[in-house]
């Protein structure tokens, strides 16, 4: 029943692409989300407006639209290749671009609610010491905010792991694309193929939830 496992499908390779997509996008969206959150709470009205508009627009756009638009619009129509050399590399980078643009908004919202958990007195004390906006944000508020939002960020990371499957829409050879191919070719092992891929994703997401849940409880600021 599971004899498709030792045939010529590169199961581990496909999941490795999924993992890579997840890691690169996670790093990118953490940076982009933090920037957006910084702009949203900052003193410059135009930046606040931009970040608010960006978050509201992108969060309400389907990820599939973003990623397909990256491929058909940015790449095939406008000819942007993001420095990728072949079809495979370009698709991979475009998928990461779409995932970062989308996931950044969720990171931003999580961080913003984390900033709201930091007591007023912390920022007031920072200001009383003469720290400017940037200093009090980076030195005082954000470190505490990050410690409060480990669990929400873990949720975002898990959602991101699952969202990497959307890259199959632009033919990135990750797990969902391989599953679609396998399920069509090995139609007699339909349930087994689904079970294998489902198991793969449970293995990818479950430890993240458990580990970061534990980390979150450990680092949370006791108030």
């Amino acid at each position, binding site marked *: 029943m599971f004899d498709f496992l030792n045939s010529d499908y590169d199961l581990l390779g496909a999941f490795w692409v999924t993992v890579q997509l997840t890691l690169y996008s996670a790093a990118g969206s953490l940076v982009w989300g933090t920037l957006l959150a910084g702009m949203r709470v*900052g003193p410059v009205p135009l930046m606040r407006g931009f970040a608010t508009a960006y978050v509201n627009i992108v969060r309400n*756009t389907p990820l599939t639209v973003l990623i397909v638009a990256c491929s058909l619009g940015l790449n095939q129509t406008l000819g942007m290749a993001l420095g990728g050399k072949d079809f495979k590399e370009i698709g991979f980078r475009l998928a990461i671009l779409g995932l970062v643009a989308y996931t950044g908004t969720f990171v931003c919202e999580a961080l913003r609610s984390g900033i709201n958990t*930091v007591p007023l007195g912390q920022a007031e004390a920072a200001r009383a010491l003469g720290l400017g906006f940037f200093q009090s944000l980076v030195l005082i508020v954000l470190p505490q905010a990050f410690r409060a939002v480990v669990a929400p960020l873990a949720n975002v990371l898990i*959602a991101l792991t699952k969202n990497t499957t959307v890259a199959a829409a632009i033919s990135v050879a990750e797990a969902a694309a391989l599953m679609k191919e396998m399920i069509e070719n090995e139609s007699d092992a339909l349930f087994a193929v689904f079970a294998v891929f489902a198991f793969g994703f449970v293995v990818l997401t479950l430890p993240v939830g458990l580990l970061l849940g534990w980390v979150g409880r450990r680092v949370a600021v006791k108030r």
Partner: protein
Amino acid sequence: MSGGSVLYDAPGARAKRRNLLYTALFVVVLALAAWWVLAAMADKQQLTAAKWSPFVTDPAVWSTYLLPGLGETLLAAGLSIVVALPVGMLLGLGRLSDHAWVRVPVGTVVELFRAIPVLLMMVFAAQLYAEFSSLSSDIRPLYAVVTGLVLYNASVMAEIVRAGVLSLPRGQTDAAKAIGMRKGQTTLSVLLPQAVTAMLPVLVSQLVVIVKDTALGGAILGLPELLAQNRTITANYGANTIAAFTVIAVLYILVNFSLTSFAGWLERRLRRARRSAGVVLGTEQGEDIGVANPPGAPTDELRDA
């Protein structure tokens, strides 16, 4: 801390000048980005009037492609929520059961389906229907998409229902017991009605997630929904890819933004009304809406009550 305004003082003369400088710099950056994009678009003839005007001048674009596409999107999303809601409610109550032989298997199913990407379930359902059913191939994508969405969202709803019931004050159960209600009666006439009210805003925001996920069906399973219209429009109106994507994205954003705003309004209204035990589940979160904990994490702590 609210809004972040405590992070900086009311701007004085120097801060005003500095803010002005940052604003100017940011305008320059935005303008450069816009100019770069527009130049690239102009270079590939994506800015010509012929590529954009059909969306204003030609009603056929709307009546033949965009509106039927939007209709299909809303149909798939609507069917999914209508089926997922009762299933999710049953699963949610099952997870709260006093009997381990109900609670444990239901819990396993819910956690499992929340951990699997919805796309895998759609692809699986598509193949399942292709092999074991007599559905015609043009209706199959809709069934597959709805099946995938139901499997995933029913388990998310289960968590929402559970969170809703658990968020009610203990006194509600105690009071029901005190007037002699049995377990089933307590759940049906005391806990569930209040839980449903408490979770209404979250349900509406979950609808946004469902609408967004239907786009997967268009991109991968050939469901003729809104995103899939991009292909037919660009084929018929002269490769106006950017224009078509812009219009399609705007339509998605309009639908989802009104749903999000409605959810927010509902939440504020319910919080103000406080007719029941006064519990409302908040809507502000990421993808796994209404779910306090990552799959697998201990689920004793709840979102705001």
